[in-house]
């Protein structure tokens, strides 16, 4: 079929409706390595502006760390740029297996399989290990990649209200007639920054004979006393059956993900998971960079400790300034604004003040829950965060929202 005028027009209409709904996503060009401070060209063609970055997943500040960059260079020199193969044909080097073993040790699991990304890990794992007689019971706020992965499996699906353990228990009771039961949750929920109650989830799993899956993408490297994840935080490292996580956030920030957990589950992924079987192996520089990250994090908790301090400072500062934030301990700190336009206006004004943040609204977050999601990094320092707080106060004051609670903000701006 030719790319006819009517087809072109139809696509242009689709794009227009995305723009009209205010959902059109524009990239901002960054002219520096990922860091706490970055040089940004926005809008396209404008002069570069140096801003404090409060919206990266660079939680430990390792994305451009010299030791990680050097390790990636060595990987490039010693093992090459790429392998032009999937893993099981001729795409597995010694370093791939080393990284899988290092991840198993770090996450406290029996075995690990690498994927090109955590999205791929989540896309592949459910179909590989569950069939039509089984049921997947997931938290209603799990990440989109988990939703997609669950859709690809043939298992029955059900959900429980976000972090509601009574509701989960009801669902486990209801599905006692299924073959296998798998409870699925994010470790840290990416939009709210709250932690899944994995201790209680594991208790229920034991009581009702269910397996537990947790996606630790927003916790690996920094949640828990030694940064192993939410399962370490709640003391249930030996009770989790499947962990998925990413190497694209705190663990170096490049790319790659994994399924880690019970060895039979990992082995089945190696045989059946389609994103593993049909996509390229991870490039050697990324593998070697990630190995260095795990070595650094195993040697010292200094970076996750610094992140914890920065998080406390930031959360306290926002509360004292009179913002409404989502409570919790994670370095994801959502500043609640409830109104979509207000979230866009404030993000724009903060950018003018040298602070790079993004406003989120429906459908990325539920209706009436618009917010600016701030994310801390170990690469931030206190003077930098003090400057960012001053900018938040200035802009918050301009819009008259400091000291207002949810109801008052909605009364003023609507939701």
């Amino acid at each position: 079929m030719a790319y006819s005028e009517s087809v072109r027009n139809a696509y242009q209409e689709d794009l227009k409706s995305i723009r009209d709904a205010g959902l059109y996503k524009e990239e901002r060009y960054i002219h520096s390595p990922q860091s706490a401070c970055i040089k940004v060209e926005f809008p396209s063609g404008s002069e570069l502006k140096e801003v404090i970055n409060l919206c990266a997943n660079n939680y430990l500040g390792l994305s451009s760390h010299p030791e990680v960059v050097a390790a990636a260079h060595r990987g490039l020199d010693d093992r090459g740029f790429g392998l032009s193969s999937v893993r099981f044909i001729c795409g597995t080097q010694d370093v791939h297996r080393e990284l899988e073993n290092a991840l198993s040790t770090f996450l406290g699991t029996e075995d690990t399989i690498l994927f090109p990304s955590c999205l791929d890990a989540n896309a592949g794992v459910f179909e590989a290990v569950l069939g039509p007689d089984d049921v997947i019971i997931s938290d209603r706020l799990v990440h989109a990649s988990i939703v997609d992965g669950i859709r690809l499996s043939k298992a029955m699906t059900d959900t429980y209200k976000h972090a509601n353990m009574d509701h989960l228990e009801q669902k486990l009771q209801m599905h006692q007639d299924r073959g296998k039961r798998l409870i699925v949750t994010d470790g840290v929920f990416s939009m709210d920054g709250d932690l899944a109650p994995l201790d209680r989830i594991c208790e229920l799993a034991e009581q009702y004979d269910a397996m537990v899956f947790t996606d630790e993408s927003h916790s690996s490297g920094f949640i828990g006393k030694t940064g192993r994840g939410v399962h370490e935080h709640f003391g249930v490292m030996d009770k989790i059956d499947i962990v998925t996580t990413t190497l694209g956030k705190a663990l170096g920030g490049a790319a790659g993900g994994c399924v880690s957990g019970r060895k039979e589950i990992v082995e089945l992924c190696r045989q059946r998971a389609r994103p593993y079987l049909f996509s390229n192996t991870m490039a050697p520089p990324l593998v070697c960079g990630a190995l260095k990250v795990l070595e650094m994090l195993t040697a010292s908790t200094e970076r996750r400790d610094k992140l914890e301090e920065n998080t406390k400072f930031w959360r306290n500062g926002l509360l004292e300034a009179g913002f409404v934030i989502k409570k919790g301990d994670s370095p994801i700190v959502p500043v609640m604004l409830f109104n979509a336009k207000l979230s866009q206006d404030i993000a724009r004004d903060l950018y003018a003040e040298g602070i790079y943040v993004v406003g989120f609204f429906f459908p990325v977050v539920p209706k009436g829950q618009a917010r600016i999601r701030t994310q801390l990094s170990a690469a931030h320092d206190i003077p930098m965060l003090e400057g960012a707080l001053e900018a938040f106060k200035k802009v918050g004051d301009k819009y008259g929202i400091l000291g207002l609670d949810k109801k008052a903000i909605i009364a003023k701006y609507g939701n």
Partner: protein
Amino acid sequence: MKEMILEYIRNEYLDDEDDEDIELNETTPLISSGIVDSFSMVSLKRFLEKKCNVSLPDDEATPEAFNTVNSILTLVQKHQKG
């Protein structure tokens, strides 16, 4: 029966705090509005089968058939008669 289904949907799918403004009646779109996500339809199906003493075939328990309480009633009544 209508009230019973509405009450179940309210308890099962709506959050007390964040969804207090959502108006729910027999014509409110459930699936297309996102109140009931397709992953959770199984709970509603099992509830209906138990409470109404019917068996709803999987190929008829579609998102379209579950989109409003009215369409759900039509499906249930068809199988009650059968």
